[in-house]
């Protein structure tokens, strides 16, 4: 093994970052995480499937196209209004596989458990994984169990991976948005992130905020059926929120996204919580929301199909795609001016005043 290249010895034109150690912000879904991914992971694992930077890899075996994805769940608290870590672990990977238009079939589940964790709570999590898998129509077919010393992990971490088959010939992905696409979201934003935050910080609001965790594969099947090849991209707006995925769309497809303020649906209690904390809901995580980019001629049809689904009742058309400023997400403000919707550097930080 004389040819092993060590990242610390490489002479790369760009430094990995200015950090000697990994920061929390490297996992926040913002620019720092993107930097880490492109400068370390893509650099090291370099291959055409990974380099597409979609939430899933599309692999072809014996003429069958498949989508393959993985996700790890480290949420604190483990149980929160609207769901728990188990449900998230199933829905999250089901969604990542489905965003390519694949039909998810099989999941793996890896558990990293801290010594001393309550058996009863573990059972509760596993039962909720079972129920979520049943509801999404997937089977958990393989798994792994590790227990770490007390203090070496935070109660419970779960990793899931998923495989699905692709039964269409369309290219759907973040590099496939086209001019005159219309962007549709399947409902209100920021519910999950604010549900977690209000639990974590012990904030009580008049109406409790519930996570939106949901498996979107059923809805996606209907979208593909109705929009066909006019469905150009879909992505679930998890960490980094809607702003992060729209920036990824704009960058990967070299297009401009134009949003209109006020068209993006948000529940009142969530909006209020964001106002109190000084957070912009566009950057807050969702676990059951996605943005679909679809050619204008099919937009109305897809929109109606989405509205008719229980997971898309509050769907809204939030903007469109033009070409004049490639890589940028812009928003027309309520008062008629324009601004950029940027990707955050790290996680959003509550302000002083």
């Amino acid at each position, binding site marked *: 093994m004389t040819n092993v290249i060590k990242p610390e010895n490489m002479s790369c034109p760009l430094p990995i970052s200015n950090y000697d150690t990994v920061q929390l912000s490297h996992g926040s879904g913002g620019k720092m995480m993107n930097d880490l991914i492109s400068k370390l992971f893509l650099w090291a694992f370099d291959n055409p499937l990974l380099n597409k930077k979609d939430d899933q890899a599309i692999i072809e075996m014996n003429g069958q196209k498949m989508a393959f994805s993985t996700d790890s769940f480290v949420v604190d608290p483990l149980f929160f209004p609207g769901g728990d870590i188990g449900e998230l672990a199933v829905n999250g990977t089901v969604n990542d596989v489905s965003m390519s238009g694949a039909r998810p079939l099989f999941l793996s589940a890896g558990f990293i458990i801290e010594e001393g964790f309550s058996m009863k709570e573990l059972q509760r999590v596993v039962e909720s994984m079972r129920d979520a898998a049943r509801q999404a129509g997937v089977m958990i077919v393989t798994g792994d169990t590790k227990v770490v010393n007390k203090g070496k992990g935070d109660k419970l971490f779960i990793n899931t991976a998923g495989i699905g088959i692709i039964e269409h010939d369309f290219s759907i992905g973040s590099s496939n948005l086209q001019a005159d696409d219309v962007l549709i979201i399947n409902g209100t934003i920021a519910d999950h992130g604010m549900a977690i935050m209000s639990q974590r910080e012990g904030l009580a609001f008049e109406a409790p905020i519930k996570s939106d965790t949901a498996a979107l594969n059923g809805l996606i099947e209907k979208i593909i059926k109705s929009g066909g090849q006019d469905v150009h991209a879909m992505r679930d707006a998890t960490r980094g929120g809607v702003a992060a995925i729209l920036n990824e769309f704009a960058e990967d497809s070299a297009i*401009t996204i134009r949003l209109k303020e006020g068209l993006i649906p948000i529940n009142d209690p969530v909006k209020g919580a964001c106002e109190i904390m000084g957070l912009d809901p566009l950057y807050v995580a969702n676990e059951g929301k996605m943005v679909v980019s679809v050619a204008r001629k099919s937009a109305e049809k897809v929109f109606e199909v989405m509205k008719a689904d229980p997971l898309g009742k509050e769907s809204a058309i939030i903007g469109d795609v033009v070409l004049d400023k490639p890589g940028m997400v812009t928003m027309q403000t309520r008062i*008629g001016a324009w*601004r950029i919707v940027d990707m955050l*550097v790290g996680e959003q*930080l509550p302000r*002083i005043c």
Partner: protein
Amino acid sequence: MKYLDEYRNPDIVKKMFEEIHAITTKPWVIMEICGGQTHSIMKNGIDQLLPDKIELVHGPGCPVCVTPLEQIDKALDIASRPDVIFTSFGDMLRVPGSSKDLFMVKSEGADVRIVYSTLDAVKIARENPDKKVVFFAVGFETTAPNNAMAVWQAHREGLTNFSILVSHVLVPPAMEALLSSPQNRVQGYLAAGHVCTIMGWEEYIPIAAKYKVPITVTGFEPMDIVEGILLTVHQLEKGTHKVENQYARLVKKEGNLPARDLINKIFQVSDRKWRGIGEIPLSGFSLRPEFENHDADKVFDLGEIKVDEPPECISGIILQGLKKPHECPAFGKKCTPQNPLGATMVSSEGACAAYYAYHRFEKTKSEE
């Protein structure tokens, strides 16, 4: 959403813009004091819809931005100590000191925690009697009552393990410092609504009279800011210089008296250094001597911490409204939110960060 949507109503705002356009005959330079106002102006694009004759310059009212570098180095020094739990509001964590920020110290093992109220830090002190719990008391008059209350509670309960690292600054002395500078361009002020919620607006009357500038106490929603500008332009065009209160739904002339009493009980007015501006006499708060066992500056042996600003950073000139962020050669190139040279690029309320986030390509407008 009640109490919010009314103040974002585009029709009302549009009418106010029309009125501003109608009454403006001469060029005017107006400074919004507060970083929250700068942020709102950029986020909503208010500056784009004003007459060309009206120039908004962005004031020093971002607490993160004016906290001196050595104060941040002190925070890093204290936070790195093994017997300390260091608490802070979130946006101080990414502000770089001379070599690190609080996030980096945290990743090295320091116990740094984000809190949403200073009283949460007192609670942590109560629950961790074997640790020294320090809160980074940064801010203007707005956050002073909260911090005063924390010290008062800790004092009353005898929580000797609780202290605050004070970096409190006051708005009126900074306004005067700017107005008395020979380079001053500011002709009218939008005063910071939240600060006045606590302090009232009486102390602005002598400033308006002495320097002959209209001062309008202004809120933070689009309607507030546009109305604040409208009232200020009205006065500028008429040649008057009164203090007016646009934010009357929250601000009383005398402010919040119980809050002011509490501040006076705990803090005394003292000289303060402002990042980028320098020392301004009687421009901040420090703890009164009887509370010095809650004063992190006294509790910890910090030695002499003296540091210089990066020479490329012109945040001082920007905080005085003499230059705009995009006129800095480092803006968006050497200095970005990812690698900030100065605090104005770090805080979401900093003028440079607001320009970068919302308008770094001067024209973002697409073809209709």
